[in-house]
């Protein structure tokens, strides 16, 4: 169970895994996620289901190395198994024909954006996709996304690929170009979602963001994932992960995401040291 069937390197430090999880694959809708645990000592982390193959019973997750658990995950290969995979969790995206939809994915957040964008396209929307990253090497799922997007843009902070600048620069261009946009979707760093939402608010365009809060159970049992939306407390794992971008308190989200910064660093350093020591032994 939970065996890794395939692994692809998408970019520096970003891997795609295909995992055997037939029950989850059967049920999953775009926007939903799983919680995984690698081994007995492991922590539980949420990961978006980027894609599924229902016939084969496979789910796809995309993981960027940001700490110990994701680093460890990156060392696993096809044939290895994860100890726990549970899902599909969270509310599915509300997908319908809105008209013109702009989907914005920032960094590894594009893996979250990808299935939603695809769902929107399948529902008959005119789909414009903007994928942004710090630099060329961090752009993921480019070809796959291009395939179903009606318009496709890339931005990089350093200008090494696509347009130099931020995703919001590209969005602004579209907005100023006078295009009628019915819905904007954004998934990526909290700060990116914040600025996308500020911009679309000015234009009065409905905006959906996918929040990446810290989670433990993912079933509404602990409350660590709480976020403020429209001044009300919500649990991202069961009420979300998608919310009205104009109502989210992003500053709170960012602060809560930093809760265990020091512990995360400690765990990461300790893990890297262990690997180094092991390397020396061999």
């Amino acid at each position, binding site marked *: 169970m939970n065996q890794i069937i395939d692994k692809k390197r998408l970019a520096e430090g970003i891997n795609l895994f295909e995992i055997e999880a037939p029950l989850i694959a059967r049920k999953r809708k775009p926007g939903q996620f799983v919680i995984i645990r690698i081994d007995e000592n492991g922590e539980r982390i949420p990961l978006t289901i980027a894609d599924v193959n229902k016939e084969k019973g496979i789910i796809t997750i995309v993981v960027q190395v940001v700490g110990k658990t994701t680093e460890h995950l990156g060392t696993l290969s096809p044939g290895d198994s994860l100890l726990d995979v549970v899902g599909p969790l969270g509310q599915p995206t509300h997908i319908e024909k809105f008209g013109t939809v702009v989907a914005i994915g920032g960094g590894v957040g594009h893996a979250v954006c990808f299935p939603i964008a695809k769902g929107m396209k399948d529902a008959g929307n005119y789909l414009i996709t903007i994928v942004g990253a710090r630099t060329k090497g961090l752009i993921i799922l480019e070809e796959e996304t291009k395939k179903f997007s009606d318009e496709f843009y890339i931005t990089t902070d350093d200008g090494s690929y696509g347009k130099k600048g931020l995703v919001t620069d590209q969005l602004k261009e579209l907005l100023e170009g006078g295009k009628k946009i019915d819905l904007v979707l954004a998934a990526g760093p909290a700060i990116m979602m914040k600025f996308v939402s500020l911009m679309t608010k000015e234009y009065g365009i409905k905006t959906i963001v996918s929040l990446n809060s810290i989670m433990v159970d993912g079933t509404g049992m602990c409350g660590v994932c709480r976020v403020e939306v429209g001044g009300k407390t919500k649990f991202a794992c069961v009420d979300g992960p998608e919310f009205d971008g104009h109502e989210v308190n992003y500053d709170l989200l960012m*602060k809560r995401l930093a809760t265990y910064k020091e512990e995360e660093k400690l765990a990461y350093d300790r893990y890297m040291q262990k690997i180094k020591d092991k390397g020396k032994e061999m």
Partner: protein
Amino acid sequence: MVEKKKKKKKKRPPRQEMPRQDPKERRMNFNEVALGFSEETAVIEASRCIGCPKPECIDGCPVFVDIPEFIKLVQEKKFVEASKKIKETNILPAICGRVCPQETQCEIVCVLSKIDKPVAIGRLERFVADYEAAAGEVEIPPKSEPKGKKVAVVGSGPAGLTVAGELAKMGYEVIIFEALHKPGGVLVYGIPEFRLPKAIVAREVDFVEKLGVELKTNFVVGRTVTVEEFFDQGYGAVFLGLGAGLPWFLNLPGINLVGIYSANEFLTRSNLMKAYLFPEYDTPLRVGKKAVVIGGGNVAMDSVRTALRLGAKETHIIYRRSRKEMPAREEEIENAEAEGVIFDFLVNPVEFLGDKEGRVCGMKLIRMELGEPDESGRRRPVPIEGSEFVYNCDTVVIAIGQGPNPLALSTMKDLKLNKWGYIVADIETCKTSMKGVFAGGDIVTGEATVIEAMGFGWRASIAIDKYFTTGEW
């Protein structure tokens, strides 16, 4: 004969105390606080039971353990047989012996309590269960003829484990579906290691599996499968033992500051995820210097004693009434006091204060006084106007109670819920408004106890068997 005469003449020994780890030691570790009876103490304690012809104690037990009979076996030093006797109706004796509030169940009705202290039934139960486990392979009762009928049990807390175990004994094919990665419900994620070692929970869950129950973890009913699908897949009945797992927060400014936890999160990190062993285990939990737990129940006591053991320099309980009204078991309050927890009574938070990083750094509290009794019979706390003051702290745990988690329930349109969102079910038969669906434990009563949840599981097993036999709903 001679011995018996002697015994009769002898004065009844006093109720035997259970040795505990020294408070100064135990506040630094997660090892079990209570250390258990020795064989000698157990036999002395058992000798206090007079073997009433109409024992009241049995009626005090929701799963009707044959208490006088098992105690008699202890008197005869047949400890393994005593444990087996208990397991005829209670498949989790080592757990119940540790966490049941016997003082309000079997011991309160023990006839001795009228003239003396009651027999220490719980301590004896714990002793024989541990004795049997230590003595080697735990014997599995012979299996009944397979009935060829399947039952799905949702939730692996005490309610689910009990109904599953009892039905398996009768020959049903039972599968438990559990959302978390480990079975046990509150027993694994809520109750701390120092009160209920997880190895003991694992041992008793293992016994349930050996009875023939299949356990599927990482299964969120309502997400991974729905109850309707169970019926499509050939299950003849479904039991819902979902517990009361939805944490309540206080609707106050600053409630979402970093460092404010629900008791569920705090305890889950420590117990289920083993944060007390960080960084050996990956899940962290930070307690800061001054940790404050809001609430006066057992969950609050477990949280504050966990915070203490995790290294908080100062640990407080904030409770809006006085000590007398605290719902926690007296024993747990005493344990907390002995370990150095500070109790602040008649105060209530009105606001949480944060620093510039968004971390909690204090609270605004208001003083309370006790007014007229409310519906619960306890005197209602009333705020004293103008008595607010600021109180520093860097960790806050909210332990003011839990409610029903709507996750699975919201996918069952025909299931009747009461106004608080709990399942409406018959107390005796556990039948719900949906044909073939039974429910019991905290998801019906709200937060209660392990043994009450087990009582539901026990009664449900009988009702489910009857349903299969008669086909009547």
